[in-house]
Each structure stands twice: as structure tokens, then as C-alpha cells.
């Protein structure tokens, strides 16, 4: 019987081949964080200075923070969008019904198929900014970036259930493009990727506090502020993300079954 691991392995192989045959895609992942940071730096320099940015965010290494935040942003994009894009592309190609005919349950297929890209993409992005981190901060910068990668993976776990729900919604809506894509910039906006959460209205701050990405960004800020942050603060972030993983995936598992029934009931698949 086709299990979750078989689907994961098949899509991991497919994704690796996709990257191997699309060198542009690799180039894109390498250049994108630098372009985003260049945009913010260029845009920000019109208004003020990097010193003001450093002071406002309370980080000692603003460039490293911007680069790490961009990795968090890009990873969140890839996690949330990979599942929805998987279903849309297969619907376009007419292969979705065949994929759905496999014995595994729909939510499992969605998550297992989107997971490889959600893992590969942050790895490539971190590899892309690693030289800059080493250049700016030496070995300590490199270690901090790798630690942030661990937080990205921790933050990814609660996002998986949410992503599967977005993919189901996209299929039910029968639109041409991924209508869930609005969630990505909203998620980043309320998580304070490039600014402190405190500047947002209180309702957005509240939404941000219940989003896992905000805690990954917090970890990024912590590692950009101190070379070795206080272990207590790091543990608080790890505990929060663990609780969120359990809560979000529990909620998603309950909702996804209904979404699966709705998909089959509407004859979408």
C-alpha cells in the first residue's frame, strides 16, 4: 500500500530532478535573498540610514538580520505555496485524478508531496546566504545562520497543516491561480519579518503572536543581537513552536478530513 513515506520519497526524487534540470531555478534561489535585501536597503537608504534601522530593531548586525529574515520569509513562502502549487499544476495537467486514485488519504498526499520542496528550498536559500554570513560575521555568523535553519524547520511543522488547508481551499474555489497566495504576504506582514511587531495595530499584533513565523523571526532577531543568546530565551521559543506544532496540526487533522470530504463530494478531484 502507498504510504506517506513512498509519496515523500517519490516527490523528493522528482524535485531533485526538477532542480537538476532547471539550473535557472537554483540560480533564482541563490540570487533572490540578495535581491530582496538590496531592495530593502536601497528603498530604506532613500529615507534614512542603516544605523537607524539597527537602533530601531535593536540588532547589532542589521545586514545579517535582513539576510536571515529573508531566508525565513522565503522558506515560509515555499512551505505555504508548495502544496497549493502542487495541486494546481497537477489539475492543469490533468494528472490530479490519477494522483488522488492512490490509496493514501488526500491530506497525506498533499503534505507528503509538498514536503520535499519545503525542505529543499530553505536548505538552498541558507546555502545562498552562508557566504555572506561568513564574510560579515566570520565562523560565528555561519553558525548562527545554521541555527536559524533549525528554527525554520521547527516553524515549518505548524505551517504544514495550514498549507494543506490552503491547497484544499484552492481546489474547492476552482480558480485559475492559487487564491491562497494572499495568506503568504499577510503571514509575513503580521510576523514582523523586517520590522518590530509593535509598529502594527494591536489586532495585527495579536494575529502575529499566534503565527509560528513570528517566533522564527524572533529567533532570527535574537541571533542577530547576541553572538550567544541567553539559553532561557532560546528555550522559550523552542517550547512555543513545539506547542504550536501540536495545536496547529491537531486542528488541521480535524479540518482536513472535512475538506477531503468536501473535495470528493463536490467532484473537484
Amino acid at each position, binding site marked *: 500500500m502507498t504510504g506517506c513515506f513512498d509519496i515523500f520519497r517519490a516527490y523528493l526524487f522528482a524535485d531533485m530532478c526538477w532542480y537538476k534540470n532547471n539550473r535557472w531555478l537554483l540560480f533564482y534561489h541563490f540570487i533572490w535573498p540578495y535581491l530582496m535585501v538590496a531592495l530593502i536597503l536601497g528603498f530604506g537608504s532613500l*529615507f534614512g540610514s542603516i544605523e537607524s534601522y539597527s537602533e530601531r530593531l535593536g540588532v547589532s548586525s542589521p545586514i545579517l538580520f535582513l539576510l536571515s529574515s529573508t531566508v525565513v520569509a522565503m522558506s515560509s513562502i515555499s512551505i505555504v505555496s508548495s502544496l497549493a502549487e502542487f495541486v494546481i499544476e497537477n489539475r492543469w495537467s490533468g494528472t490530479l485524478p490519477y494522483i488522488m486514485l492512490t490509496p493514501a488519504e488526500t491530506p497525506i498526499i498533499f503534505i507528503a508531496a509538498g514536503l520535499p520542496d519545503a525542505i529543499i528550498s530553505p536548505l538552498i536559500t541558507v546555502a545562498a546566504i552562508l557566504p555572506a554570513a561568513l564574510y560579515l560575521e566570520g565562523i560565528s555568523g555561519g553558525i548562527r545562520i545554521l541555527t536559524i535553519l533549525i528554527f525554520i524547520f521547527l516553524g515549518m511543522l505548524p505551517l504544514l497543516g495550514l498549507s494543506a488547508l490552503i491547497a484544499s481551499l484552492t481546489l474547492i474555489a476552482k480558480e485559475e491561480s492559487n*487564491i491562497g497566495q494572499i495568506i503568504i504576504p499577510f503571514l509575513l506582514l503580521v510576523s514582523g519579518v523586517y520590522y518590530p511587531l509593535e*509598529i502594527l495595530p494591536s489586532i495585527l499584533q495579536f494575529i502575529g503572536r499566534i503565527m509560528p513565523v513570528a517566533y522564527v523571526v524572533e529567533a532570527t532577531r535574537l541571533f542577530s543581537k547576541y553572538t550567544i543568546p541567553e539559553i532561557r530565551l532560546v528555550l522559550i521559543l523552542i517550547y512555543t513552536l513545539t506547542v504550536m506544532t501540536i495545536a496547529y496540526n491537531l486542528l488541521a487533522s480535524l479540518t482536513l478530513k472535512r475538506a477531503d470530504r468536501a473535495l470528493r463530494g463536490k467532484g473537484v478531484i
Partner: protein
Amino acid sequence: MKLYKIKAVVWLHILRLWRYKISFLNMALSITLWILLFLLGALMFTPKGELFKAIPIVFWGIIMWNIMSNTISLISGWTWYYLSQGFVEEHILTDTSPFLVLVGRPITGLFLSALATIFIYITLSGFEGSPIITITDPFILMLGILTLTLMSISIGLILAALSFKTGIQQMFIEILNFIILIAGGIMAPLSKLPRFLAYIAILIPFSHSAELVRFGAAGIKPWTSPTVIVPLSLILTASFLAISILTIKRIEMHIRISGLKAMGRM
């Protein structure tokens, strides 16, 4: 070209716009949120107390980038869908140029830019500061926007045509949009850019239209006299339109002889 075909293309794109209204609204809101995300990040560079004074300066920059990126990506980026559905062959079989359908794509792009502009205006109005929209010379402003739009449509069509034979990826278009935004003199007047970037920006055709827009909107003097920039922008726009028509004709001839490079999914 028969008039009913043009009417059919316009009808198709308006119908699609209505049919995919949720996607359309979703895209307009997404653009606004992305811009807000970067804007809030960039505003953190401003010393305390001067936070929102800078907003009117960037409003027109955002509008120009919005027009440019939406038009280019919604024409050239759409070929992925267009090709994967096999629509090119269908149009050729009914003796209709597949590019005629693409020429209608600016309808979607410009509607999207208009809606996103409204959302951005509403969002920026929420910040304290001086009035967001200023107009000093409406004729120059309109000319700047018109040349920028026509150049964007031309580049979108050139990239779309090339994607039929070379498989241009969506990411290439995104990178192109970003580079033009950073180095193309769209967000900032050329006089404010570092010297090496200003030289690069002069070589990017959009920068001249952007200088006209800023001159018409806020009276910011362009890098050289407007009497030079106006004809220069018009000549560049005409050249791009001519190049796009030639590219389309050449590629269409090629695909009728040797077929598409991208069959099905690219």
C-alpha cells in the same frame, strides 16, 4: 485582421477577469500587502519622528512599478498557462494568431494595477503625513505613464514571444522586475541614486519615463532637460513597440514551421 477576432479577444479577457474575480482580487490585495511589507521594513531606516514624511515620495514609484511589473508578468508569465493548456495550437488551427490573445492580456494587467493602486492609496492614506498625490504638470505626467505602460506591454510581448521558443521562466521575469525596480530609477529620482547606479539607470529605458512621471507629479527635475527626455521616451517606446511586432512575427513564423519548443508543461 478581422474586427470580430479583436472583439472576441477583448471579450475573452473581460470574461476571464469576471470569471476569476477571486483570483483578481486576491492578486491585487497580495500586491498591496507585499508592497506594505517592504515599505514598513524600509521605513525603519528613517530616524524617529520623521517616519511617515517620506511616504508621498515613494507613492508614484510604487504606482510605476505596479504598472510595469503587472503588465510584464501578466503578459509574459501567462504563457506558462497558455502553452500548458494547448491553446496555441488551437488558435493556429482556427487561423488566429496566438499572439492576438496575448495582446489582450494588458486588459487584465492594467485593471489589476488600477485596483492595486486604489488599495495602496487607501493603505498609505492611513499613515500621517503630507498629501500623497501631487500633480504639477498633468500632460508630462500622463505622457510618462503612457510611455511606461506601452514599453511594459512591448517587453511583456517580447518575453512572451521568446518563451514560445526558449522556455523563459517566470522567475526570470520576477528577477527582471526586481532589478529594474532597484537599478532602473523607478523608485528614486536618478539624481538621488549613487553615481554608478545612475549610469546604469540611464541605460534602462523605463528610467526616462519614470523621470517624466516624477517631474509631472512632484516637479522633481529629471537628470537632463525635459525637452530631451520627452522625445527620448517617445523614440524608445516606438522602438520597443516595433521590436515587439517584429519578434512576434518572426516567432509566429517559426512556430508555424517547426512547432513550439514547450509542449504541455514547460
